[in-house]
């Protein structure tokens, strides 16, 4: 049985990644999960300089989902490389550093620094963050801006470059193509869907930041749809995420076109979610006589040609 997949030149022993921001820097879950058993570890989003993040409350539960407004709190690339990377290097697992910036320069700076560190197998750039040079409009909502920032990062790194797309757009395939045209080796989707919840007793937003990102099973139908749209629009591999709770959900994403999947909110519900999902994928392969997991990628059967 072959579970290994290739994502932009990176060979992973299986298609299950941790979703950025939901698995800390790996340490926190090492007691529950054999990190070496994972396809890859994607770190919490990193920026050139540390970020304090948003004031609490930062999370709120919603029907079959949750909103978060962590505000990209992180210790910065430098401290990550010094303090966190050595721990991760002990394991036989590719480390993908997720990073972001609020300007093209910050993106480039973070990518450069991360590319010089030994032990990082790939980069995932999170473009669902506001661009201070463009009135705080989110990078990932305009294909030209997406193209610009991805191109700039592409120039400074030889590492496999994954671009993580925002679902808060009219046409995600357009954004995926912009990322591909700019040299991305893979795209990753979906990030959280912007949402909001109000405490009707206090009349205040339940998140101090007012809005936050919706994740969890509630958004899975949106994620699957977007992966399917992107899969048919680009040639680079797609990493699917959004509400994957078990092996069956992972298979659903792969049938829609994902080469690999990222597991986020599920870690909070079940700390062993990632390895449970790997086991679930194996079970499905056994039950369905599938030898190579890549063979099911985009294997959705559909007849209507007009779509």
């Amino acid at each position, binding site marked *: 049985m072959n579970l290994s997949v290739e994502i932009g030149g990176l060979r992973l022993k299986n298609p299950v990644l941790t979703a950025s921001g939901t698995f800390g820097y790996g340490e926190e*879950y090492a007691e529950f999960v054999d990190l070496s058993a994972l396809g890859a570890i994607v770190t919490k989003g990193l920026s050139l300089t540390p970020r304090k*993040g948003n004031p*609490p*409350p*930062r999370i709120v539960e919603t029907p*079959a989902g*949750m909103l978060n407004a962590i505000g990209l709190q992180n210790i910065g690339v430098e401290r990550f490389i010094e303090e966190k990377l050595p721990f991760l290097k002990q394991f036989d697992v590719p480390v993908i550093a997720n990073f972001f910036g609020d300007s093209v320069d910050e993106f480039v700076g973070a990518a450069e620094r991360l590319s010089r560190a030994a032990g990082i197998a790939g980069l995932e750039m999170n473009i669902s963050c506001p661009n201070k040079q463009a009135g705080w409009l989110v990078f990932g909502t305009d294909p030209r801006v997406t193209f610009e920032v991805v191109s700039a990062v592409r120039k400074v790194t030889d590492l496999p470059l994954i671009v993580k797309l925002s679902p808060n757009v009219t046409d995600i395939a357009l954004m995926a193509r912009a990322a591909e045209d700019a040299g991305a080796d893979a795209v990753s989707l979906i990030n959280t869907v912007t949402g909001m919840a109000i405490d009707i007793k206090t009349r205040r937003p339940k998140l101090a930041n007012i809005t936050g990102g919706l994740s969890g099973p509630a958004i899975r139908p949106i994620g699957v749809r977007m992966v399917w749209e992107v899969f048919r629009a680009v040639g680079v591999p797609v990493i699917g995420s959004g509400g994957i709770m078990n092996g069956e959900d992972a298979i659903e994403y792969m049938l829609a076109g994902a080469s690999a999947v990222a597991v986020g909110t599920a*870690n909070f519900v079940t700390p062993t979610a990632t390895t449970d999902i790997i086991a679930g994928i194996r079970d499905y392969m056994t039950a369905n006589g599938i030898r190579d997991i890549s063979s099911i990628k985009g294997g959705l059967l559909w007849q209507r040609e007009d779509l």
Partner: protein
Amino acid sequence: MSRFFQAEVTGNILLSQTHNILRITPLKPHPSPSPGQFYLLRVSEAMDPLLRRPLSILRWDESSLEFLIRLKGRGTLLLRNMPPGGCIDLLGPLGNGYPSAGDGETPILVAGGVGIASVYPLIGRLGTDPILFYGAASSGDLCLLDDIRAVTSNLYLSTDDGSMGSRGNTVERLAAFLDETSVPKPVVYACGPEGMTSALLRMLRERGIPGYVSLEERMACGVGACLGCVVETSGGYRRVCKEGPVFKARELGF
């Protein structure tokens, strides 16, 4: 011994309209907690409610764990209605509990409402006949009084409505006590609602009394990974689930 384990519900005692004690028996050996630590409980197998609920450890022995639960919303309702015989999964013990008292220090325990659950395990463990201030909205919200009285006679009860103990809030009661009594090297161990906590912290700061306070914040992972449960401290944002839930009073700026 994993901190993520399955357990059987082996008891569920309804204390009042709002409080119950859930007793569970882990199906495998599990790490022992210490006072002030907590667990995250899965309240349903469905995707709604999705997140685990944090509960302080109330009592434990080799074969079981007990939680005191105050009815708040859907999650605590499900925990209240959980029939014995059912299965539940838990994550814990989590976080840092209360440290033990130093030489010559006089521990003073302070509990507001269901905060008693967090403070309770200290009663039998911090010296003999420890001082406990315990307040709640009304007499019906004061739980486990017999068990508490069995361990200490230094119990100061108060209720907002005066239906039991003195009328008024616990922090004022404690302040009056400190005015009247000379306590050698007092150290406070406290858990209660936000209002109590901030009044207490102010009072401790004014009087220069050290203490430990357990905080609550919304949680997702419980293990320090999501950064969802931070509170502002003198050292910046700290995770309640990891650096807390018990913090030194002087770290807390509010």
